[in-house]
């Protein structure tokens, strides 16, 4: 087993092995920045995307990597229209009506074929050396992004049946996308930018997002692959749900660490936790503060299943030296005494 895989497995098991597993989440935007490539071009080319991510890995030597372009890949395939600035992430210029979301075929629609081909190359070239996770959206988030977030959130209360139909279409799409990824041997992380506890609260999360998340995660695991879940925003309103979810790890942007430790201290199986290193600090912070935060975070979860990771993707124009500081501080960490 490679050192990265060893550290990853050890962190999931909280075996106390050093150094700890460390995962700054590098997406297409920062990877393109590191290569001085225009993001728009990288987002439309499987080879350029794979090259950029592989290049970033060669610089940082992380223990974990994601294949991730931007949040709108599935939403675009379902019919919403994006605008691509030359060197910034895309944004929506026309949303879809919930009734008109398209059933997608991953080998054909939007940039899904680009993602499949990029994932295949990264897995082929680096999958043995390092855990590679392909990032896809949870069905709720994909539907909300395609339909326009605010309009979709209102539907949860004003027309819940219509919201459910849109989520079901999205769910079936994500099952087909997932199947294509599993066939190539991918491990998968579900990203949930809209199914956030801080946005939805526990009631709507459980009513509209949780079931399809659990079904997709179970599908990944039943195929013998590793499964992760990334939740954006404040997760405290749904922390109990996340602690019980059938997944190898949950990547969380913001949560109460002490409460998490309480929730997983009942002797039952629980996922490992990763994330919550502030990306603003990584981007702009002085070296001493980055080092102190890394040390504090590892120490606070030492003895628990934990992967040190950024709360969200590394900011596009974060200087390389900042990420190197983060990696070095993590590699050098040792428990006191």
């Amino acid at each position: 087993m490679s050192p990265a895989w060893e550290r990853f497995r050890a962190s999931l098991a909280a075996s106390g092995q050093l150094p700890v597993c460390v995962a700054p989440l590098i997406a297409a935007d920062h990877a393109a920045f590191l290569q001085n490539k225009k993001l728009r071009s990288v987002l439309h080319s499987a080879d350029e995307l794979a090259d950029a991510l592989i290049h970033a890995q060669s610089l940082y030597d992380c223990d974990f990597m994601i294949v991730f372009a931007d949040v709108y890949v599935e939403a675009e395939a379902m019919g919403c229209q994006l605008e691509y600035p030359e060197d910034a992430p895309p944004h929506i210029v026309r949303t879809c009506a919930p009734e008109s979301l398209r059933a997608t075929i991953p080998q054909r629609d939007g940039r899904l074929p680009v993602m499949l081909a990029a994932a295949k190359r990264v897995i082929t070239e680096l999958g043995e050396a390092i855990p590679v996770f392909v990032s896809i959206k949870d069905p709720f988030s994909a539907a909300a992004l395609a339909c326009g977030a605010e309009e979709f959130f209102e539907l949860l209360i004003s027309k819940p049946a219509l919201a459910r139909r849109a989520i079901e279409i999205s769910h079936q799409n994500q099952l087909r996308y997932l199947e294509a990824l599993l066939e190539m041997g991918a491990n998968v992380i579900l990203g949930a930018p809209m199914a956030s506890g801080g946005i939805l609260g526990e009631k709507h999360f459980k009513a509209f997002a949780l079931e399809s998340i659990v079904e997709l995660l179970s599908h990944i695991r039943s195929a013998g692959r590793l499964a992760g879940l990334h939740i954006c925003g404040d997760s405290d309103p749904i922390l109990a749900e996340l602690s019980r979810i059938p997944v190898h790890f949950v990547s969380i942007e913001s949560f109460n660490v002490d409460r998490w430790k309480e929730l997983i201290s009942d002797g039952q199986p629980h996922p490992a936790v990763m994330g919550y290193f502030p990306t603003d600090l990584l981007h702009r912070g002085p070296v001493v503060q980055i080092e102190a935060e890394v040390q504090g975070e590892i120490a606070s979860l030492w003895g628990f299943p934990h992967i040190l990771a950024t709360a969200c993707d590394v900011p596009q124009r974060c200087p390389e030296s900042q990420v190197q500081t983060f990696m070095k501080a993590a590699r050098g960490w040792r428990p006191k005494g």
Partner: protein
Amino acid sequence: MTEDRKYTAAELHEQLARAVLDLDVARSGELAQLVLDYHYSARDAILKGLSEGMRRVGDRFCSHEFFVPEVLVAARAMYRGLNLLKPRMLEEGETTSGYRGKIAIAVVEGDLHDIGKNVVKLMLEAEGFEMVDLGKNVTPAIISETLQKDNIQILALSTLMTSTLAAMKSTVAAVRSQHPQIKVMVGGAPISATFASEIGADGTAGDASGAVRLALTLTGQS
């Protein structure tokens, strides 16, 4: 006329507030129509009914009983009533907008995420501030132009992304140098109190209710 009235003005105000809190869009419209039919003050119905309802929604948002979907539907209920009552209020030569002051709100240049900005705008509007919504991806030049011509007390800036924190910093710097009398509040997922202070903002808040409290404090009304 009076004997035909089923509710007193105070009762209608309370029911309007409850309709907003209950996220009952249709009921809000029905009650607003009753205000018109009974010839009660439209301004009072807005301030003591609809705005009071949004204030209660803000309290529930703050205590995590309500989340973004509830706030959006409550706002729809508020606007259903407001759109009926506003023409009558204007006929009466009254206004509610801006009795607390005037705030310009924008998402900084480079950022197209505006859910947070929209929720904060709704809550500030319900509190009685007149809002000048500049939208998303707004350049410092447009902000400066607005501050120059409108009688604005506060600029509220939002961003969701870390990549646009630099744009927020330069916008605040531009406003500070050109419009030193304007108070600046900043908010959004990546904003910390330390960052707000470092860039020279007058304050930040973690959520929409906090933003209302901050705006009241900055205008000396807390």
